[in-house]
């Protein structure tokens, strides 16, 4: 089965890193295939930043996302700019502190979107004490809400990607994020 994931936010949130961690988890630790791409260009700084990951049990021919099954929005700009082609009954995960939910009420209802709220930035600051791990908190929420990669693979990929000495904080962040989704 082919699954398409899109993550949007603003430059500096670690959005692209999250895409790489998902791709790595799927391809190196879950034994699947994955292709990760990202937005390049002037909009990557401060403005909207985007990464996309295609995951499949089969070899992946066309490498780009056409209509995502899963969209994670970590900023209002990214939410509004990148939401429209989310699949009918697709999964949308938002950081409720960073987006205006009212703006998407119709969209969610019309497309029967499964909406999850994960206050990743607040959790990173209040629970872990490190704002920079918000993306890894979100990673935990993504894994719980979608099962797009396994918990074990996600943890392996995080350990493989984060700077030495920060492993414990990042695993705590992942688990805190996992706990945000019922």
């Amino acid at each position, binding site marked *: 089965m082919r699954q398409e994931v899109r993550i949007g936010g603003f430059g500096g949130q670690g959005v692209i890193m999250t895409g790489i961690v998902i791709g790595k988890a799927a391809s190196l630790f879950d034994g699947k295939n994955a*292709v990760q*791409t990202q937005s390049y260009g002037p909009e990557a700084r401060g403005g909207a930043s985007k990464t996309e990951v295609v995951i499949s049990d089969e070899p*992946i021919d*066309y*490498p780009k996302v056409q209509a995502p099954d899963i969209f994670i929005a970590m900023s209002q700009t990214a939410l509004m700019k990148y939401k429209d082609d989310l699949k009918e009954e697709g999964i949308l995960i938002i950081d409720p502190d960073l987006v205006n939910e009212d703006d998407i009420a119709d969209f969610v209802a019309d497309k029967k979107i499964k909406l999850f709220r994960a206050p990743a930035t607040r959790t990173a600051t209040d629970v872990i004490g490190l704002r920079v791990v918000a993306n890894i908190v979100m990673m935990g929420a993504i894994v719980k809400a979608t099962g797009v990669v396994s918990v074990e693979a996600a943890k392996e990929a995080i350990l493989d990607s984060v700077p030495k000495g920060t492993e414990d904080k990042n695993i705590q962040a992942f688990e805190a994020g996992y706990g945000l989704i019922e």
Partner: protein
Amino acid sequence: MVEERFVLGNEACALGAIAAGCRFFAGYPITPSTEIAENMSVLLPKNGGSFVQMEDEIASAGAIIGASWSGVKSMTATSGPGISLMQENIGYGVITETPIVIINVQRGSPSTGQPTMSSQSDMMQARWGSHGDYETIALSPSSVQEFFDFTIKAFNLAEEYRVPVLVMSDEVVGHMREKLIIPDSVDIVKRVRPELEEGEQYLPYDAPENGVTPMPAFGDGFNVHVTGLTHDKRGYPDTNDAETHTDLVERLCDKILKNKDKICSYKEEFCDDAEIVVVSYGSPYRSVLTAVKEAREEGIKVGSLKIDTPWPFPDEEISKLAENATDFIMPEMNLGQMVHELERVAGKDANVHLIGKIGGVLHTPEEILEKIKEVASKKED
């Protein structure tokens, strides 16, 4: 031990270069090839090599030619305007028969064009971008793994034929991350050095049967004059003699053309009974395969020919496919370049259709499928 990594295409290219034995890189960073220079600047010092950031691209091409003559496998990487600036020295590499590898991660052009977007619009420049009659070899990868594998292959072909080899990648492949499998060891072609019998006179350009002369390095003790002027078998300039020039330039071309069967590489899928063949190279192949599989499910007899080596163009294989196929379709991220080669070879026996796309975005499988269906329905009429 076999190693698996999840890396950018451009990083895979750098890792391939190191695996192939590249120990010198000179370049000038330019989007979307910059990560190659960046990775080489980290990898080369750790592997006993040297990295030089040059003042511009023509100097970069000059530096790798010089490094190659000192006996070191050498490479540069560029995009867009950078490859234009290198052209004169590519010709110099051809006539001096210097093994070098040039990576071109193609972007939207002409001029500075679209730095962050993809394209395949430098394909004819890879063929004859420098002045003069010559033959080079160009490889086009369609995945992260192929960017690694083809970079190694480029070094091997450069050494085997003493010729500049171009890896004509594009932004899609350069900037995607996929799994890369790095094998324990890779097959590497080592440079053949001259060996003289006692009392034998050394003729640096007296080529054996295959047209490729053994190549000494500076400091090996052989007297070699390396010149861009037309030279005789001794390497001395001889610029007014028609025969000397003809012999030299024909040999430079023939060493590639007469070994085409060994150099050309391609992959056929679903071609056995194909009446329509989609011919692609580089990243559009990814969309072709999806489209061909879907068209097959609808009962259309369509196949895919993926060309690994656009230059030299695989005439023979295409002629063979044209015996059964009535239509060829070629998607290219340009307004029609390699399609002219396809027309030259297959145009007598079959219809050739271009799906030219510019703007920087890869063809979708639907765009290719639509063309396949259109061609198939016309056939029925």
